[in-house]
């Protein structure tokens, strides 16, 4: 089987078919599911990774352990992890979200503590000398200055999650992965390629949003 202009044409035809844009199996509904899975995943991962990253970055403790753990987590194969979670807790929303959270934690953790680490020690010492409490040092000095790298962590995590949230379809959920999994099951290659194109498009849109957010966070820093 060769990837020819024919496939591109058929994929365009699949994407252009109005029937594929309505109902629960339609693109808008699947895209919303995909966004919802990704948003919940990044939110849960942020609840874990950001406080941990702030604490590590602020205190400078456990830093090496965090680097090693985050690195090891990055190497986890999401599909294998997903299967394991499904066997532990059954099919449903929780298993794929947990597997994706494991994927999203390392970039968020790294972005947070690296952001705090990048803050000039002299600035922090100056803030302390002015009588700032530890909390004020963190909230008024470190976090604002770390913001570009923090947002960068969110950007990286979100992109990885959007690209990988397709695995949810493997265990019976929706999202854009449905088109990849169903397309393969029906040997409907235009549907598979169409689904991939949609995932890429969603990732690009999300990336554009984060580029904007990163610009804003840098501007704020300069003002």
């Amino acid at each position: 089987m060769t990837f020819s202009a024919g496939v591109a044409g058929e994929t365009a035809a699949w994407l252009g078919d109005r029937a594929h844009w309505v109902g629960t199996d339609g693109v808008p509904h699947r895209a919303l599911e995909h966004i919802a899975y990704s948003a919940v995943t990044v939110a849960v991962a942020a609840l874990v990774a950001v406080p941990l990253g702030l604490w590590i970055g602020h205190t400078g403790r456990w830093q090496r352990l965090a680097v090693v753990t985050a690195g090891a987590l990055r190497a986890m194969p999401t599909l294998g992890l997903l299967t394991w979670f499904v066997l532990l807790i059954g099919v449903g929303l929780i298993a794929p979200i947990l597997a994706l959270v494991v994927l999203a934690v390392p970039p968020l953790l790294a972005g947070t503590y690296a952001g705090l680490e990048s803050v000039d020690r002299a600035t922090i010492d100056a803030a302390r000398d002015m009588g700032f409490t530890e909390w004020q040092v963190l909230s008024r000095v470190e976090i604002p200055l770390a913001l570009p790298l923090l947002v960068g962590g969110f950007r990286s995590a979100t992109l990885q999650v959007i690209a990988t949230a397709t695995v949810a379809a493997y265990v019976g959920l929706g999202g854009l992965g449905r088109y990849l999994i169903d397309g393969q099951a029906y040997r409907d290659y235009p549907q598979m390629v169409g689904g991939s194109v949609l995932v890429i498009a969603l990732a690009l849109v999300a990336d554009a949003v984060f580029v904007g957010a990163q610009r804003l966070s840098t501007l704020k820093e300069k003002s």
Partner: protein
Amino acid sequence: MRLRHLTLALAVALGVAACGGDPTKQAPVGDSETITIGSAAFPENEIIAEIYAEALESKGIVVDKKLNIGAREVYIPALENGEIDLIPEYTGNLLTYLDPKATATAPDEVTAALAKAVPKGLTVLDPAPAEDKDSLNVTAAFAKENGTKTIADLSKVDGLRLAANPEFKQRAYGIPGLEKVYGITGIEFTPISDGGGPATVKALVSGKVDVADIYSTTPSIRANKLVTLDDPKNLIAAQNVVPFIREGKATADVIEVLDAVSAALTTDDLLELNAANQGEDKKSPSILAKEWVADNLK
């Protein structure tokens, strides 16, 4: 295509290296020459091929083994051009491969249609009662509570939840067939892409779904005491194990041996053989074949 050729070449090379015929064994005078037995690349098919080999050898027929040849697209051409002479097949899938438009589902109809569809120079012998096919399973508790013994009984259950591979949603044996043949409507379908594997079984035993499509010879059916529903209207096409052989090699002696194997081989046997192969013992196909032949053939 290139990859397939490479796979075949590798499979054949490995087969020759690993399982070359014993040169000290001479074919008895007046017997057929060496029969080269192939198998598809999954354990159950390999076990059946080993059973054919063991049974034939026990009657003094010289065999050579080229097992694990991959998918149908690879081993059927190998059978046609004489690289292999015999392979265990499944009636329904072989029929669909040879005639994609075939609609027969009942065992006799499939066997009859298959006899007509085989290419020149090849033939299928009598099929075994043993079948490896899609099967709908419920938990013992569900069966007891709802009195379900056959697929037809599922029509009594409201809001039936079913897990299967994604293609079940569109295939003739899937949701459309359940509606048309058995009048079962309003099924809540959960597609799980592991071919009736652990995630599907987990969904069933944890009560997330009521019915799961699992291949009929999967050991987890027994391990979880699942109830496989009968299919009185033959929604799911028959998949009886059948020897697919080159006509020139199907001598009276060979047919007699293979018929004896097929007559004795049941779906329960395949379940037990697969369980012994995949379970804690991890018994090899050749040892399982020796044991089965010793237990089942004179």
